[in-house]
């Protein structure tokens, strides 16, 4: 569907990923690649292993088998914090904000790996450059805040925000990492139509203007179809389809397992 052909070299490549928890096979031999600059969606029924896949990429889970390469580097054994530093940011399906921190601090935590001054310089603050650095990054964080339109809640404590706003703050925090690849786990959940429209807009902007590759899990087929370049479908931990949205959604297996036969919301629209 997209004219702007993305760079074809994969930024992320997962090869033969399997993940097992005792008897539960969350993932079985899943391989896929995300190309630089695209919006890639993973869909599939509940419990199919989508979040587990994202967890494998961001390092929360270590796959029982398989290899994950990011930017040409094998990251399968890397700790989660190292992956963040390499440029993988993410949001969470069940919100995982720092509930007692202000929104601003939450986002500043995203800058963690970009800041250099450790605790000693932090304690001295004025001497040693911590202050300068803080202020420089603060400027960039404010840009993100402006972009996501959360200025009014900057100083609010994250835990008291309504659900939708928290999702947005989480997105801001992930963006603050300056990631090359951003993983979004159901970014639209719990939003009404107009909020979804805004969120979709943010995501396409992040992709097109901020140059981030996006990997997204989403159950809203309208969004998935409209904004993603390619889609992968998981079912019971296996990949059952991958390709352009239209083609994938037309796949009979997908209709059966995921959409239901009268897939209302999945109707394609004219661009």
């Amino acid at each position, binding site marked *: 569907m997209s004219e702007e052909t993305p760079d074809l070299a994969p930024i992320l490549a997962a090869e033969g990923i399997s993940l097992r928890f005792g008897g539960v096979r969350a993932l079985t031999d899943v391989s896929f690649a995300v190309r630089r600059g695209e919006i890639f969606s993973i869909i599939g029924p509940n419990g199919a292993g989508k*979040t587990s896949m994202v*967890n494998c990429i961001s390092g*929360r889970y270590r796959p029982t088998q398989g290899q994950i390469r990011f930017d040409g580097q094998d990251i399968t054994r890397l700790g989660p914090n190292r992956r963040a530093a390499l440029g993988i940011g993410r949001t*969470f*399906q069940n919100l*995982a904000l720092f509930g007692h921190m202000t929104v601003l601090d939450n986002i500043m935590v995203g800058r963690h790996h970009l800041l250099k001054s450790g605790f000693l310089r932090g304690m001295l603050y004025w001497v040693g450059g911590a202050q300068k650095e803080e202020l420089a990054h603060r400027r960039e964080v404010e840009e993100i805040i402006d972009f996501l339109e959360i200025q009014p809640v900057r100083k609010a404590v994250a835990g008291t925000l309504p659900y939708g706003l928290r999702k947005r703050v989480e997105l801001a925090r992930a963006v603050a990492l300056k990631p090359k690849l951003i993983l979004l786990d159901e970014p639209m959940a719990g939003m009404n139509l107009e909020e979804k429209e805004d969120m979709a807009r943010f995501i396409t902007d992040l992709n097109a203007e901020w140059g981030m590759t996006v990997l997204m899990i989403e159950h809203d087929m309208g969004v998935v179809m409209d904004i993603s370049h390619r889609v992968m479908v998981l079912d019971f931990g296996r990949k059952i389809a991958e390709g352009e949205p239209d083609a994938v959604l037309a796949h009979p297996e997908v209709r059966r397992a995921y959409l239901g036969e009268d897939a209302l919301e999945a109707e394609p629209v004219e661009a």
Partner: protein
Amino acid sequence: MDTSLLLQLTLNGLIVGMLYGVVAMSFVLIYKASQVVNFAQGEFLLVGAWVCWWFLTEWQLPFYAGFAFTLVFMMLFGLVLQVVVLRPLIGEPVISVIMATIGLGIFFQALMKWIFGVFAKPFPPIFAMEQVRVLGLEVQTVYLASLGVSLLIMAGFGWFFKASKHGLAMRATAFDQQVAQSLGVSVPKVFAMSWAISAVVSAVAGVVVGVVNGVSSALSFYGIKVFPAVILGGLDSILGAVLGGVIVGLLENWAHYIDSQWLNWGNMFQIAPFYGLVLILLIKPYGLFGTKNIERV
């Protein structure tokens, strides 16, 4: 090597350890219902022992009556505590509640000293045969009786948490009070129940120790002993608590053996359980039987 001494110390460790296990169970009970670490557990023992002593010596009640009254008293004691102290703290962070139990500990420690004095007081004789011979070791009859009681209590708790509705409610309350409320569980009632049961069970241990050593404020030291025991077993496991207690008892006695035979450092008796605790935690961060935190995002 002196094997007969070692054997005797081992036996002693087992017996004392079972008693630690009982205290540990009452400790775990509160933890499972509210995630609160009860620093006043030792004082529960103390109150129970003093009250029983009071019934037996001042009121001259026969032991069984006095003991039964004590249990009733302790139940009320737990309930009152819950109403006065714990209920207002519902919804506060766990650490505040933990601090409150520390305050309770200080309060009752002093109160008991004030009422009953600082001197150790003996219990009147209870069993016709004060001690029996087991494998060459003279064992206080009360200890043996307590062994039976603790096994019973353990089985009861095991059933309670696995199968009964109120056990489930307790676990849910510990997990998240708001969720428990949304399911129709009365959080204050759950707390009341757990504190009352816990007070009763620790009173059993308190009376046993009191009968053996006499009652004095030092009894509350069992409250500290209980920490290595519950952690060794895993904070939320009833079986673990008992095993942890036994391990602590054994560690103490074996450490004492090693110390008395070779090292002559002294104090190994008291410190060894803590070394054991650290070692086990290094290998198993959730104790021997504790359940892992769920780490899913």
